[in-house]
């Protein structure tokens, strides 16, 4: 099993935070490849809105750690141009909410140029952005829209859920000759754990089974993986053995892994911080039904966010999001 990502009070015991793991990955990429540079709002002097790029400006200089104006469309477009020109830009958009300002660039240029140029133009661009709620940042900074991006052909959409994935996902993403979107869940930045030295890379084509089980498959990704694991722990106490699948890549979906798991457990709960209607969870449930209908022993359950703008008030925010208790209850329903 991979490293559990849980916030710790004193991360000075050799453990690494998710934030530090991402920074280390950036540092490695900047060091090993001259074509790599980072740009975005406040990534330089401020050290990144979430502190991921803290110190990188001093280390690599303003040519490679570039602060940009508040214009998502402009700097994502610049990133696409740089990628077309042979560089390997990493563009940081503060949150997924703001990325919608650059959606035209992402969908109409980055994702489509390969196709529209008859394969002549690739856009080897990595866009990092924060997603998800749980930190009382209210609706305009808290939504989980990665499912929208997972809808778009031409993009690869990643959601690292563990320290190990955070540490190694960037190098794998930079190898991809086409645009890759990296969704970092905001609640994970402070999560800490010991990096597994045996893990040297991330297989972007494969979902990961984070915990093995026999009674129910819990499919989750990003910030919900740790909640799913917590729920699995509680279920284990009741004698229900839950298998937790971390999607890791939201597009293309590794359905072989989660459908394979459902074939063994015959029951499924899909956890998705997006809104239920038209969500990624709907796609996953649909694939399970398409590919393993006759293996199902109960209807697939979904645990999603309430279909409201994510509230600011803490209790309300907690109530609106998928929580371990909800996952446990859903698992009980499909098993009992």
């Amino acid at each position, binding site marked *: 099993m991979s490293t559990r990502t849980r916030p710790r009070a004193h991360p000075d015991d050799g453990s690494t935070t998710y934030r530090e793991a991402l920074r280390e990955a950036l540092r490695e990429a900047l060091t090993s490849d001259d074509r790599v540079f980072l740009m975005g709002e406040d990534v330089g002097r401020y050290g990144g809105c979430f502190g991921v790029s803290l110190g990188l400006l001093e280390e690599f200089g303003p040519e490679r750690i570039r602060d940009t104006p508040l214009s998502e469309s402009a700097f994502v477009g610049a990133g696409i141009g740089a990628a077309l020109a042979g560089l390997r830009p990493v563009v940081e958009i503060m949150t997924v909410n703001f990325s919608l300002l650059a959606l035209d660039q992402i969908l109409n240029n980055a994702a489509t140029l390969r196709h529209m140029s008859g394969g002549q133009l690739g856009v080897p661009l990595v866009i990092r952005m924060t997603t998800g709620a749980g930190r009382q940042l209210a609706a305009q900074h808290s939504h989980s829209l990665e499912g929208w991006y997972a809808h778009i052909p031409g993009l690869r959409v990643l959601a690292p859920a563990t320290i190990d994935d955070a540490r190694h996902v960037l190098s794998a993403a930079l190898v991809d000759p086409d645009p890759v979107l990296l969704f970092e869940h905001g609640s994970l930045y402070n999560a800490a754990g010991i990096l597994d030295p045996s893990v040297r890379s991330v297989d972007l084509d494969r979902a990961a089974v984070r915990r093995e089980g026999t009674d129910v498959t819990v499919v989750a990704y990003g910030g919900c993986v740790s909640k799913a694991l917590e729920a699995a722990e509680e279920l284990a106490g009741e004698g229900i053995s839950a298998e937790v699948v971390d999607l890791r890549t939201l597009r293309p979906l590794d359905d072989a892994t989660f459908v394979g798991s459902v074939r063994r457990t*015959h029951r499924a709960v899909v956890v998705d911080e997006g809104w*239920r*209607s038209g969500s990624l969870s709907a796609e996953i449930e649909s694939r399970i039904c398409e590919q393993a*209908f*006759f*293996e*199902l*022993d*109960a209807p697939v*359950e979904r*645990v*999603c*966010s*309430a*279909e409201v703008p994510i509230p600011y008030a803490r209790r309300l925010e907690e*109530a*609106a*999001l*998928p*929580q371990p*208790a*909800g996952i446990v*209850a*859903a698992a009980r*329903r499909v098993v009992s």
Partner: protein
Amino acid sequence: MAEFTMPSLGADMDEGTLSQWLVHPGDQVARGDVVAVVETAKSAIEVECFHSGTVDALLVDEGVTVPVGTPLARIGTSAESRPTTDRPPSTPLVRRLAQDRHVDLAAVHGSGPGGRITRADVEHAEPEPARAPEHDKTAGPSQPIHTGIRRQPGTEPARRKRSGSGAEAKPAPPTRSTKPVRSDDSTGERPAPPRVKSSPLARRLATELGVDLAEVTGTGRGGTVRAEDVRSAPAAEGAPRPAVPDMARAATARLMSRSKREIPHFYLSTTVDMAAALEWMHARNRELPLSARLVPAALLFKAVALAARQVPKLNGHWADDGFVPAEEVRLGIAVSLRGGGLAAPSLAHADTLSVVEVMAALKDLVARARGGRLRASETADPSLTVTNLGDQGVEAVFGVVYPPQVALVGLGRIVERPVAVNGLLGVRPMVTATLSADHRAADGATGARLLTAMDRLLQQPEDL
């Protein structure tokens, strides 16, 4: 006004001939009454009516063949006299529930919005068994029960309303009774069995294990039959499987199509002198009690099993583009089923059994295969199958390999033939043994070894 339609009396039936009317216009009929005789491709079947009321008109004459679903008669139900607005509003699901539980919806107080009768209202209403048959008409005259749920505009099944958009959707409340939702007020056969709620996996398992879902008590939500319930169902043993012939035929069809599509067959044939074997058998039979007496098939099967052990390259399975030899000789015995289709129950360790034991096992297996009461262990993949059509009078059978096996031995009738033996012409009992084999797994030389080994073994029957 209700319509009595040509029922579907089997998955493969698409039309039927109305051979006889048992009612006349003006007759009163109750649900479950036999009203007509229908001739299908298989047999004449008495058909019950699923409405109560007065026969208004017969729409199809005797002797006429019509497609399934064609209206055969109009039946005036007494529910028609009641204006539809009098009926308390309820959803199709609730009406069905009421029907199943013999609850008269007219007598139920609706607690839902606009006086709508909810599921809970029906569950709380006390059934009145004495008046049960009368209540069917409250289900709505235009709703034949076998069509299941039909949605009407503006109404939704009650369960629907419960799934909110919240993070934790509440499950539908369990129904009071854990019995599967089905009506049990009719006697005898119905045109189409009522739908039993069951999970897809449970359905698949029920088919595999030969369990009748209608006999299983569901423990899932709302009485849904789950895999667990099917596994713990007592069925299988004792009760013959429902609809064995159709299912068996379909399964055989699939398997054989696959075999001919995927397996490059080659065929070998040889004739085996059975004189020594039969002489030994007759001598042996004199010592054996009548019930244990041997037939030639027992010797032949035993010889095939021993030959398979000597030629392991044909005893096993083709899997993942390669031949996997079996660890034991698990002899499949092709048994033709009554009504069509084939079963190939397997005889484990056939090579280690004595001829008498093979004989006993054979009798037992064939009887139970035809009764549809095979045990799961006996349906496990055989490593080599034998098909014996000698008792059907043919002299040779060139079979089709059962995938994933790689070979099949065919045996014909033992016939007396003039044969040259030691330079002299004599009359000997001869049997034609054939081998159908997968050319991917083996070549003719290997196949020849199997048949000659069999021949050799049958010349030393005392060693079998």
